[in-house]
Structures are given as structure tokens and as C-alpha cells.
């Protein structure tokens, strides 16, 4: 039992602080979650991380379900709940308290400077997440090619349904493996 509690505490200590640093959304945390889960805490192998990442993106809901899956991998259902609460609660409390203050300061110059100043960091963190997962993926060159093709398709046709793209890519990779091409 103490083992379990220690695992849950470790989840809180990783995801709680990240909650307050997820600038511009959960995607900005991807690189750090990968680093913590694989290299620092050895919660998952790179192989498992790639699987959990894929599953978290194919499921519905806010894009940060990856943390719940890491928690589940570490400590089952209690782990999934603990990681989710640790990730959502601090930022939710902040936004709950901040909504009124923010409305009062709307239109001031520093308000706009904070907004414009944080967005390039958010963009950089999201790109870093893509790079980090790509480098950790065990799949080889085919994964890089597919990721680049998917990027180009989604930039060219933003209305494209990502799920359809996930499905096509998954089926192609599955077929290639079934027929022993990679």
C-alpha cells in the first residue's frame, strides 16, 4: 500500500506543477510529459509511450487525456484519476479566480502584451512536443514520413477530419506490418 501511495504522490508532483505551465493548452505539455514519463520516472517504455499517445489522440475529449493514461499505467484507475485531477485542478482554480480580474483589466496595454508574448512560446512548446514524440517513436523512417505528410495535408486542408487521417494512417501501417514490409 505505501508503494501505491508513493506512486500516486509522484503523479501529483509531476502533473500538478505542469498544470500551471500548460501555456496555450495541453499540447504544450507533450514534450515534458514524454520526458518525465520515459526518461525521468521510467513509467513507460518508449514503445508504450507511443501507444498511449496514439490512443489518447484517437479518443474524444480534451487533448490532455495522455496524462490519465500515464497515471493508469502507473497505478490503475486511482492513478488515472489522480493524474487527471492533478493536471486539471490547479489551472481550473486559477481560471476560476482569474475570470473576474481579467474582465476588469481587459483592453489595457499589458493585457495585450501578455497575450501576444505568450503565443509564440505556446507555438514553440507545441512544436517541441511533436519533435519529442517523433524522436521517441520506435517506428523508424516510415513514422517520420507519415508525420510530415499528415502535417502538410492538415495545413493545406484545415477542414480535414483528423480522425479520418488517423484511421487511414493506422490501417496503412497495420497492412504494411501484416504483409511484412517494414
Amino acid at each position, binding site marked *: 500500500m505505501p508503494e501505491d501511495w508513493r506512486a500516486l504522490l509522484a503523479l501529483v508532483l509531476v502533473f500538478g506543477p505542469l*498544470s*500551471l505551465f*500548460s*501555456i496555450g493548452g495541453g*499540447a504544450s505539455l507533450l514534450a*515534458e510529459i514524454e520526458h518525465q514519463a520515459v526518461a525521468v520516472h521510467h513509467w513507460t517504455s518508449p514503445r508504450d509511450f507511443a501507444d498511449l499517445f496514439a*490512443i*489518447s*489522440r484517437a*479518443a*474524444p*475529449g*480534451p*487533448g*490532455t*487525456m495522455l496524462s*490519465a493514461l500515464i497515471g*493508469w499505467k502507473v497505478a490503475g*484507475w486511482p492513478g*488515472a484519476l489522480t493524474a487527471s485531477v492533478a493536471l*486539471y485542478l490547479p*489551472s*481550473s482554480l486559477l481560471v*476560476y479566480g482569474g*475570470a473576474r480580474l*481579467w474582465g476588469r483589466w481587459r483592453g489595457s496595454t499589458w493585457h*495585450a*502584451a501578455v497575450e501576444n*508574448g505568450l*503565443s*509564440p512560446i505556446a*507555438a*514553440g*512548446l*507545441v*512544436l*517541441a512536443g*511533436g*519533435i*519529442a*514524440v517523433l524522436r521517441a517513436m520506435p517506428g523508424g523512417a*516510415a*513514422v517520420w514520413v507519415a*508525420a*510530415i505528410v*499528415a*502535417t*502538410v495535408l*492538415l*495545413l493545406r486542408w*484545415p477542414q480535414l477530419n*483528423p*480522425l479520418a*487521417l*488517423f484511421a487511414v*494512417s*493506422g490501417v496503412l501501417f*497495420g497492412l504494411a506490418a*501484416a504483409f511484412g514490409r*517494414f
Partner: protein
Amino acid sequence: MAEISGRDAEGAARIGLGAIFAAFFMLGVTSFGGGTAAWLYRAMVRRRRWIDDQAFLAGVALSRVMPGSAGVNLTVQVGQRLRGAAGAVAAVVGLVSGPLVIVVALAAGFARIAGSGVAHAALDGVAAAAIGLTFATGLVLVPRDAGQVGQILIVLATALMVGVLRWPMLPVVLGLAPLSIGIAALQQRRRS
């Protein structure tokens, strides 16, 4: 939170906590691809008219500056407007609980067939496309105006330090955020 707060926001037409939970539960299990904010707009602003356009845009602006998932942050604010703290809790729990069960069930189901190389390969394919979605999302956020060289350098520096050099994210953000906000403030002063 069983206690029902009598002091709901602005005394607007009271919407039950159960209805809030149910609406956000539906939103959670039907919003695919991570763009929860866009789905929320359709469900809560357009269809149910629980908040108006202006309140929604103010919420979006706030969630750009505040940490946290934009979808969850907007959900907190809509729930808060409808029924105060209890409304915020009902909305967030509603939004997150369905996907949480689904995603863990998917992972548990996958663990059963994980021995098969084909299943792993298929997930590699899904992950590759999901990485493409991540890149596309990040690239859309990159500033494009000619005068924003500073911002583009900040994007590159962040991606390089966190993604390639694998420096820990928190100190990188703490170091670059003041710099980036300073650049934005200088540009505003020059423009005005």
C-alpha cells in the same frame, strides 16, 4: 460538491446542475480531435445559447493567457457563469469523465492485443498522423507578420530547447516568457 450555492452568477435563468453536467458530458464524448473550444462554441453558444458570443470570446482570450487546456478553461468559465462554483465543478466533471473512461477502456483493450505486431504498427500509424496534427497546430500559431522576427525567434528557441535539446520545460518557459512579453510590449509602443 453536493451543496447548492444560492448565489449563482448574475441571477440568470437557473439551469440545473444535472443539465450542465449532461450537456458537458455530451460535449466531452463527442468532441474529437482535441478542438474542444470549437465544439464548445457550437454546443453552448450556438445551440443552447447559454452564453453569448462576447462572453465566449472573452473566455477564449483569457484561456490564451491562463495555463491549462483551452477546452477545460472555457468549460470552467461557462459553468461558473451558469451556476457559480457548483456549476464549474459539474461542467468540468461532465466534460472529462466520459473521455477518461473511454480512453482508459481503449488502453486496457489494447493491452490485451498488444502482443500482435500488427496492432503496434497500426498505433504507430495513428501516432504518426497525430504528430502531424500536433505540428500543424503549432505551425498555425506561428506569427506571420513581417515585423515579428522576434516572435519567430522565440518560437524557434522554445522548440529547440524543449524539443531537441530536451531542457526541462519549466525553466525554459520562466526564462523566455518575460523576454517574449517584453518584445510584444516594445512592438506595441512602437506601433502607437
